């Protein structure tokens, strides 16, 4: 069934398909025409610098110790988030972020909230098992 020639052809076809898929995706990312503020960009780096993902999720991906923050900005507002960030909780340390960092982080969370809805209750399930929002 698998001669040496066939193995090589299948492997080559799969690799070409994978590379094509990868580069097609890189060149046609889901969201186009992005205009992102400097503050939002900085906010993403603050998010990563303090490893917020270790405890918090975005679109259900991340840690499990804290809540999912995908739409927290739009649902609770910046003051609510700021209170937690600046004071910490029983579990979350106060990271002593300066005003610029807090402001950048809020801009990033606002950007995430504007990107879509992460709440599973906003989805409907189709008969074929797929989901849509």
């Amino acid at each position: 069934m698998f001669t040496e020639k066939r193995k090589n052809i299948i492997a080559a076809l799969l690799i070409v398909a994978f590379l094509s898929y990868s580069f097609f995706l890189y060149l046609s990312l889901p969201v186009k025409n992005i205009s992102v503020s400097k503050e939002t960009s900085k906010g993403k780096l603050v998010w990563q610098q303090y490893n917020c993902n270790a405890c918090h999720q975005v679109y259900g991906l991340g840690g499990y110790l804290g809540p999912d923050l995908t739409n927290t900005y739009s649902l609770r507002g910046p003051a609510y988030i700021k209170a937690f960030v600046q004071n910490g909780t029983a579990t979350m340390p106060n990271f002593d972020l300066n005003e610029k960092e807090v402001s950048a982080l809020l801009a990033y969370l606002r950007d995430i909230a504007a990107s879509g809805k992460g709440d599973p209750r906003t989805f409907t399930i189709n008969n074929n098992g797929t989901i849509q929002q």
Partner: protein
Amino acid sequence: MAPSNSKQEAPSRLFIIAALVLLGTGMFWGVTGGLQYLIPGFLKSYLPFQKIRPLHVSSVVFWIIFSSTGAVFTYLQQHTGKKIYSRLLIKIQLIIFSLSVIAILISYCAGIFGGREYWEFHPILALPIVAGWILFLINFIKSAGSFRNQPVYVWMWFTGILFFLFTFLESYLWIFPYFRNNVVNDMTVQWKSYGAMVGSWNMLIYGSSIFLMDKISNSKNYSHSSMAFLLYFIGLFNLMFNWGHHIYTLPTHNYIKHISYAISMTELFILGRIIFNWRASVSAAKKNFHKTAYRFLVAADAWIFLTLLLAIIMSVPGINLYTHGTHITVAHTMGATIGINSFLLLAIAFDILNDTCLSFEPYKKLFNRGYWLANISLFVFWISLIGAGVVKAKWQLSTSQIPFSSMMLQLRPFFIVFFISGVVMMTGFLCIIYPLLKNNVLCYFKFKTTGKIQTHYYSPAA
């Protein structure tokens, strides 16, 4: 298949010894993290959860990387009957990897992170990992020689090495603003890389497992068969295109989700079939000779079916909607990482490291207890995570949602079981790896001193 030669394989064995240390380290951080779920604020000022989690994840991922690298080098030599192309390159790779791991673990303690979900470290520290991996690739290609008429595991090793390099580099595309400036774009590429990266190290582990099965059955019929290659190509297809099941709820391209839904998670089924077919063909006497390795393969076999069941359920987007973001996902990861990958790697470790200058006889009881402790506690651990996940799933979809902190309080009984079973599991694993580690480290230094190694082939489970 050439017989093993301890002296020839010494540098590659060091990878596995280092891996066992990392497994112990990873379990320690895991238990500490579990304690932080039970005691809010535990070590908050010194080692908060955002430090403990990457310490745990990186230690465990490096356990997989180190042990599978050691397995590939060792088995490649046994397969070809020749020395590895360059022992110097192996040593350089080992030094690079070891120093990088130490630097990575220290960086977390110092509060320096990559900040990515879920395997992350600072991009600067990724550079030596890439350099070490390129050495691995060079050494592998030069040692393997022609790919003509090679068994399936050589293809799997090559695929694993190549795709790990690609996906690891891909996981750092976020450093370019083009990729990171939008959360949806960023997460799409991130999970493309991580999904395939797991598939790539699975290729290394599963390839080595097939070599071990061939070795135990003393036959290469399976690894040259059309069925083996058919399953390999299906696995490769999965590695390349099934990663979208991680991001069903992300507002990304729909075609990514549809492709993933159609083909995802058949890789575990593939290995289950391989092991099942192999076991039926092995005679009892040969099984007994390698009984320790065999025992872990049996354990992995059971976990493949449990994890497969969960994986199939979770691969349906409509069901994934319930399980996504809950501890059911963690149960799946733990089943795959501990139940399948770690048990397979322990089977390989016992096969490679069992010829030491010291006897394993005094550790027979310890091993047996450890084996059962690890297996039973892993099952309890797994069930507690599923239980916690079901409660969280109900909460996520509830129309009158109580606060997150109240929901976490409801999960507390599951966390208690999760923590206790985690401690018992760690104890079990330590009982298993302690004799292996102790005998090998002592004999390694004896070998370094005398240049001779007297081997005692022994299986503590026998």
